[in-house]
């Protein structure tokens, strides 16, 4: 007769495994954050990195809802916006510098954002967390529209169309950082990004974090065991709001301005896309999504006016064919390599890669030619010295043939793998 507890103890990972799986990645992340400035990135690169840090924390907080608790929200930017607005106001109080506020370093703004986000989550979450699924999504949509509309209405709080700006140079210095030049802001962002990642990861290890996953998978069962799913959702919602507010505080210091636009559905939709494309079933998914999306948002828009279309295509593609997102690809590949199965799958991988490249060729040709045609300036898409006008038969050939061939190849690869 084996003792049940003994079997459970045997299932638990050893200390070494725990260290390797949980602590080492965090240390590596910290090392990466510390090493980046050694490469002397340019000013615009540092600004981009700072925005990545903000989006990482924001996406992780969003995934506390979508991935972990199974709550689809269309209004998560509300909490980042409210946290950020509060931080901007605090920064202005600090600049006036009397009494208590005179002693507050600007470095601590994300903490204020955290508090404001938690408060906003606690107030708005009370009515909205009573339901899950579609009603929750709809309430979040309604609340987002309401708050955004209110943002344009109350000028003294939100500053109207112009928003409210602040100065990050005020207040006492912390750790010798004046926060003036952008590479000093980098250290500020790096510190708080690490805190955000650590905090959201620690949250997944708490009983509440585990319960939120249980509530996502089977709320009846959770109730049966003696917990109140509504309460679990509410608490998770408060924490998600708090971390979003923290991202808002980081953004307040980096950009020194907040506008009511930041409360609207557009940034909420953007973080939904970033998180989902990254992969909601992995903790690191939102981090990858945030990095890729911020990079695309800032760089792709320089190359092509159609970048929103590419973004939409990518999102729909991920929803349809890759529900595990970028993280799914990364971990799937790593697993295959570790299991030594590369020899079995490399042919179908190659086939699929080639197919995807062909599809991308067609899609890019179609989109670029279409956008140039639509603007009507007579500009012509000229990649690699080719002259792809709308009257050139090569354009049509490049738009259709690789697409067909690519789809056939990808389908063949998928068929081969399912065998």
């Amino acid at each position, binding site marked *: 007769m084996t003792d049940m507890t003994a079997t459970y103890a045997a299932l638990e990972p050893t200390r070494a495994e725990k260290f390797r799986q949980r602590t080492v990645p965090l240390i590596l992340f910290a090392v990466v954050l510390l090493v980046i400035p050694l490469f002397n990135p340019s000013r615009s690169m540092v600004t981009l990195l700072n925005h990545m840090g903000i989006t990482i924390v924001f996406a992780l907080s969003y995934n506390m809802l979508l991935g972990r608790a199974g709550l689809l929200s269309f209004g998560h930017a509300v909490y980042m916006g409210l946290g950020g607005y509060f931080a901007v106001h605090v920064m202005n109080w600090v600049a006036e510098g009397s009494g208590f506020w005179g002693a507050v370093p600007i470095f601590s703004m994300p903490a204020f954002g955290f508090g404001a986000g938690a408060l906003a989550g606690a107030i708005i979450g009370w009515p909205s967390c*009573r339901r899950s699924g*579609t009603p929750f*999504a709809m309430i979040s949509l309604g609340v987002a529209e309401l708050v955004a509309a209110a943002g344009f209405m109350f000028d*003294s709080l939100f500053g109207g169309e112009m928003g409210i700006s602040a100065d990050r140079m005020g207040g006492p210095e912390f750790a010798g950082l004046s926060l003036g030049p952008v590479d000093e802001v980098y250290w500020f962002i790096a510190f708080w990004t690490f805190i955000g990642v650590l905090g959201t990861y620690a949250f997944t290890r708490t009983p509440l974090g585990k319960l939120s996953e249980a509530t996502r998978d089977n709320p009846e069962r959770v109730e049966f065991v003696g917990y109140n799913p509504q309460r679990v959702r509410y608490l998770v919602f408060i924490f998600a709001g708090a971390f979003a507010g923290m991202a808002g505080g980081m953004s307040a210091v980096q950009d020194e301005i907040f506008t009511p636009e930041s409360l609207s559905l557009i940034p909420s939709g953007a973080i939904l896309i970033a998180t989902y494309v990254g992969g909601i079933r992995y903790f690191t998914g939102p981090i990858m999504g945030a990095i890729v999306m911020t990079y695309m948002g800032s760089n792709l828009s320089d190359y092509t006016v159609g970048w929103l279309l590419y973004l939409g295509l990518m999102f729909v593609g991920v929803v349809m064919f890759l529900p595990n997102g970028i993280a799914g690809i990364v971990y799937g590949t790593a697993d295959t390599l570790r299991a030594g199965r590369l020899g079995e799958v490399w042919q179908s991988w190659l086939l699929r890669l080639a197919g995807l490249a062909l599809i991308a060729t067609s899609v890019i040709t179609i989109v670029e030619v279409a956008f140039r045609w639509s603007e009507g300036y007579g500009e012509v898409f000229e990649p690699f010295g080719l002259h792809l006008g709308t009257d050139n038969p090569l354009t049509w050939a490049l738009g259709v043939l690789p697409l067909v061939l690519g789809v056939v190849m990808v389908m063949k690869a998928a068929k081969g793998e399912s065998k």
Partner: protein
Amino acid sequence: METLVFALLNGVIYGLLLFMLSSGLTLIFSMMGVLNFAHASFYMLGAYLAFTIMEGTSFWIALFLAPVLVGLVGMVVERYGLRRVHAQGHVAELLFTFGLAYLIDEVVKIFWGRTAVNYRVPELLDFPLFTLYGAQYPAYRIFILFVAAFMLVALWYLLKKTRAGLIIQAALTHPHMVGSLGHNVPLIFMSVFGVGCALAGLAGVIGGNYFVTDPAMAVQMGPIVFVVVVVGGLGSLEGAFVAAMLIGLLQTSAISINASLADIFGFLGLGPHTEVGEITIASMAPMLPFLLLVLILMIRPRGLMGEREV
């Protein structure tokens, strides 16, 4: 009196347009259990297609052809998109339609540009029909009223009085049983999705020149249509009708009220020059549907006439 009559007339027309959009959305929801986020994008597509067809031919051809084209696009989306995603659950479906709305927006911008197109009321209907309190009332608005009412009756007849309607109703609640009886349920789903999108397209054809036809029209209309469907009770056509009328009247009458919050709550000591006191009812009109949505979902999650909880 004058304001009231005009608000009433315009409110009913706006409400009927909203119902035309939300009836398709409700049908699709009760069938697949998914809220089609891209529904308002099909409305936009209808308006733009009508504009293009009208340039080449006439408004009357556009009135029939554009909804049919939108319906076909909808069927393709269901067959090759939604049906694939269906296996992954409702959240994936909702996200798919969310991405689709993004895509349709961008594609519309490619074909028709980023600014509003000049989609005008046909000349035949561009005259004042009658004069009310010294103000002329355009004939086109009454035309909208008639098209919407005709559609309403046709939809009701199709669903309640024909054999096809019977099968659709059965497929909504018992798809497996209907399948076992030898009907092609996926085909039914695809057709209903197509018809729902065609209705949205029709609303675009007659609403696009009543309002403005620009790439932002889907984003403006979309959330309000959701509100109508949820407030009315998901899956209930009658509820959608009541909610559409309610929101149509509420919004148009709020726009015509020129009072500020200070005028109403002045007795509580709210000054006319404070920030809250200066807000007028008219400026709150765009917020009202969402306020209603949040209230309804908190107080009565089934919606006005829904049979099941959302």
